[in-house]
């Protein structure tokens, strides 16, 4: 059976969806990804959908689920590379993917995640300082 590979890069997990997802595959991805987040303790998930030409409400729900579930496991999700036609269609469909962060491409997505982690690190460092005093 087809599987979408999940790559671990530093603190992050990365998934590049290269095919148009059918339902089974999307559901598997959701399950696998959540497993992987929990196993690796990743701080961020990057999903590249630049090759995806259709995102319908089902697919949108899966993306939302992944973001929500990862959040519970303390990982931020960034969707990157959405095609203009897909973005316009999603807005018209009435699915603005609230709660999901987006970035133009993998590079910018990485930057965004790194910035988040840095902020968290600084906050933790600050917390540590305050406990010392």
């Amino acid at each position, binding site marked *: 059976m087809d599987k979408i590979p999940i790559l671990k890069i530093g603190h992050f997990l990365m998934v590049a969806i290269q095919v*148009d997802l*059918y*339902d089974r595959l999307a559901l598997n991805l959701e399950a696998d990804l959540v497993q992987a987040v929990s196993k690796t303790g990743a701080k961020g998930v990057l999903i590249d959908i630049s090759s995806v*030409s*259709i*995102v*319908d*409400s*089902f697919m*949108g*729900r899966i993306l939302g689920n992944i973001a929500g579930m990862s959040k519970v496991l303390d990982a931020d999700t960034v969707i990157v590379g959405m*095609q*203009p*036609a*897909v973005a*316009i*269609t999603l807005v*018209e*469909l*009435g*699915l603005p993917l609230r709660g999901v962060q987006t970035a133009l491409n993998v590079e910018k997505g990485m930057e965004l995640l790194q910035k988040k982690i840095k902020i968290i690190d600084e906050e933790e460092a600050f917390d540590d300082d305050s406990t010392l005093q």
Partner: protein
Amino acid sequence: MVVFRNRLKEFAIKIGMGLVNQTKLITAASELSRNMLRYAGGGVVLIEIINGQRQNGLRLTFTDTGPGIPDIKEAMKDGYSTGKSLGLGLPGAKRLVSDFEIQSTVGKGTTITITKWKNG
């Protein structure tokens, strides 16, 4: 599903539909065929090329013999769902196409016809 989408894309390209409208049409068709599979256990889709006054378009007719929709008005509202979905299928699909018609008889089935013009 994937085969159907590709087939529809071929038709859309044949009449010279732009990328955005192609995406809108295929997404709408995807919503409707998913409904058909989920609630009626399958159905038939007819794809037609139609000639309008100014431009060509595609007309899709989804016919199933499922349980039917008791309250169409309610079903056309955003966020209404009898299943576990987001409830965007019918109203969302309607917003994505140029013309949307629905007929349904409880116990007999549902027929939905959508039309998308090349530039609309």
